[in-house]
């Protein structure tokens, strides 16, 4: 089952700081609830885990994370994440592209497009949840990412 989320959000920090966070898997993945990066397995390729809990419900994926595109000139990245349910109940694929653009009034606008494909048990029995959950995760990501940037900025200014 496929779902696409288009979201734009703004942060007050400067482009370089935002860009630096975007291309660092440790930093960006830290902002996605339940995601951990375990090891680097190649150029722009990482292995990690995704564990999500919603009340009593939980899913766990073993994930391959890949920076498919890092376009410094256009300030654009494309990250793919392929996760396989650790109990063999299916998989999830995510392609997220983020475009940065400077705002006239300062700060950066991030335009994100996230395509999520879910197969297996969750698609079968939890289809009413997928878009809702994806949206919620995205909201949390935005909130965490913004906080992380703010903290980094504060630290840098100390």
């Amino acid at each position, binding site marked *: 089952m496929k779902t696409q989320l288009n979201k734009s959000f703004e942060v007050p920090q400067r482009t370089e700081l935002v860009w630096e966070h975007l291309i660092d898997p440790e930093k960006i993945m830290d902002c996605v609830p339940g995601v951990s990066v375990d090891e680097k397995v190649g150029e722009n390729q990482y292995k990690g885990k995704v564990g999500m809990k919603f009340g009593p419900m939980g899913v766990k994926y073993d994930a391959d994370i890949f920076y498919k595109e890092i376009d410094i000139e256009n300030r654009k990245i494309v990250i793919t994440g392929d996760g396989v349910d650790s109990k063999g*109940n299916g998989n999830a694929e995510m392609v997220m592209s983020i475009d940065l653009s400077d705002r006239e009034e300062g700060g950066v606008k991030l335009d994100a497009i996230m395509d999520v494909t879910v197969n297996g048990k969750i*698609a079968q029995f939890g289809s009413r949840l997928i878009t809702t959950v994806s949206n919620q995760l995205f909201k949390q990501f935005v909130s965490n990412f913004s906080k992380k940037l703010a903290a980094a900025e504060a630290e840098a200014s100390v």
Partner: protein
Amino acid sequence: MFSCKTSPEVGGMGHSVKRKEDARFLHGKGNYTDDVKLPGMLSMVMVRSPYAYAKIKSINKDKALAIDGVLAVITGEDLAQYGLHWMPTLLSDQQMVLPTDTIMHQSQEVCAVIATDRYIAVDGAEAVEVDYEPMDAIVNPYKALDEDAPLLRPDKEGQKDNQIYHWERGDREKTDAVIANADVVVKERIHLPRIHVASIETCGCVASYDKDTQKMLIYLTTQAPHAVRTILALVAGHVGLSEEKIRIISPDIGGGFGGKVPVYPGYVVAIAASFLIGKPVKWIEDRSENLTNGFARDYHMDCELAATKDGKIQAFKVSTLADHGYTDSSANPSKYPTGMFSICTGSYDYEHAFAELDAVYTNKAPGGVAYRCSFRVTEAVHAIERMVDKLAAEIGKDPAQLRFENFIKKDQFPYASPLGWSYDSGDYEATLKKAMDMLGYDDYKKEQAEKRAQGKLMGIGICTFTEVVGAGPSKDFDILGIAMFDSAEIRVHPTGKAMARFGTKSQGQGHETTYAQILAEELGIPYTDIEIEEGDTDTAPYGLGTYASRSTPTAGAAAAVAARKLKEKGKKIAAHLLEVSEEDIEWEVGKYFVKGAPEKSKTIQDVAFAAYTNIPPGMEPGFEATHYYDPPNLTFPNGAYICVVEVDEETGAIDVKRFVAIDDCGNIINPMIVEGQVHGGLTQGIAPAMYEGIEYDDEGNVLNGTFMDYLVPTAVESPHWETGHTITPSPHHPLGAKGVAESPTVGAPPAIANAIIDALYPLGIKHLDIPITPAKVWEAIQAQKAKA
């Protein structure tokens, strides 16, 4: 109307006697497959694929086998050692029992876990580690025919694309020519969605192999125990399971509807497991396994109906794309890959028709079962009945009037249809007239005009269908070469009580009552004195089973003919007892008497006793008869259904206000049971019309694989059905009966669809595919508004 020949106590044809089978069900003593418990019985649970299309890279059993109580994990590789990993389908295709390399649909069996109980088996199934390599699934059947579509079945020799076969019937050129020159041609692409029979009991079996006697006893949820036994012997004969060593018992069945005709992989694996382990193995599907395996319908039909400007139908053409999933396991007679689809010319008299069909493979579950339908009749009727309504709307003629003007007339029977059927009998005008009277058609037409003037949406929908059931005559109908006769074996005991056995198998139709009534009618033995038995291949005579409304047309006829054989023998005995010549003996229900001296008589019970105690010299003792009935033709039940709906324009909500169903199923054995069958079929008709449809996403995930999302109607969605009958006996059936249970499933969906579309017609909506949900209605209304 039909008048009863027997007293209510004897309970022959026409009596609404209460069902003999009820007591055990009412007291919780029915014996369904899951109720079977054998000593040492093990439980089997399937590991199923989360993907629609994938390579299996590896299967690791270790963690599962480490669980206390898990005894075995059986994979395709394991079965391949015995050549049991593939099995043939009824239509010369082959289906995986368990895969060795490729998964072809979501929820396909991957391997089986055998454990000491179901709980442990489920844990074991979760512990099996399967490494898959997912591939892009083909879900859309039109895309399956694209030139660059991957070949789904490279295992089939000579298979170059995803087309399974092309089939056609009728005269294409003449039909095209008539359509090209007609005043009016209406066209539509009509989809009948993939649905599931969803009987409340799922499928399952208990297989029990005795290594000492080498007998395989199988309790099986099957509508066709004999046919399944033969198929099993053909598939597994090489490992020692020959036909005489296999005993299939089809115990009580919790609804079949065609879904319990196929041989599912789970059966074969359980049988193999029991064979290998030497202990009984039970396998029962859960609901999701049931809903995601097997299907019915799924025809995409491009229809064209041509007529003169005043509405005389001239030609019908339909080109169909049939989505069969990954293998063609349709449960059809072997020579009829599209079943009886060519009945699609309907109840109307015209000369030219052409039907063609292309069947394709996709990454979906196989099935194509005849869901409460005589092999694709539902699809055929939907096509013609939607098109007739569309024609009526197009030329502005009342749809009832249009039908009256086109009906095959009473005196045209037997009627040779343009696609090759010989309709046996019917009085279509009388049937529609009766339905209109019962509804108050004219009053509703007036009400509709008033409501439309107020901007309210009200619709009246008609369906006047002709079915073709009772497969069938052996010259045309067989399953894997076995002619589609059916059988009855009667034993009258010395005390005049009887038992009879049949090759069919009731799944709620009430055979234990109706067959007894047929014998009561013929022999005059009270129906309460006759025990009926079906479903045990060791004891019942060979028969092809119960589906496609064939029990009454075939086994019911066999019962009558067998009883008549008995009566002939009885006549000789009576003559002997009454000391007159056989020519002087006459019969009236229940007794023989001397012509001209009715006081000199012997009851059937007297004669039965004599058959064991005082037989004429030279006669073989006993009072038994068997008959295998090979019908000379099919029977053609028909009916007229009318539905009235109101639609809430704001929400799309549909309220079915009335539904009147008049059926003509020939002579009626038990009116109460016939009415009950019609009610049930009608609810199974409103189901796909408004609620049910298996939904796949583009990746091949089934999105509604539980009863939380697969919307089987409850008593609230099901309207209060109003039913009635006309009776035109079948001229060739010994009892004049035709079969009824499937008519309502066939006739209701187009009647409901026609009603809803009629309601929406003022808004410019001319067609909607079923299921017509409020959301779909609302979207259609918005689309019209956007156009305006």
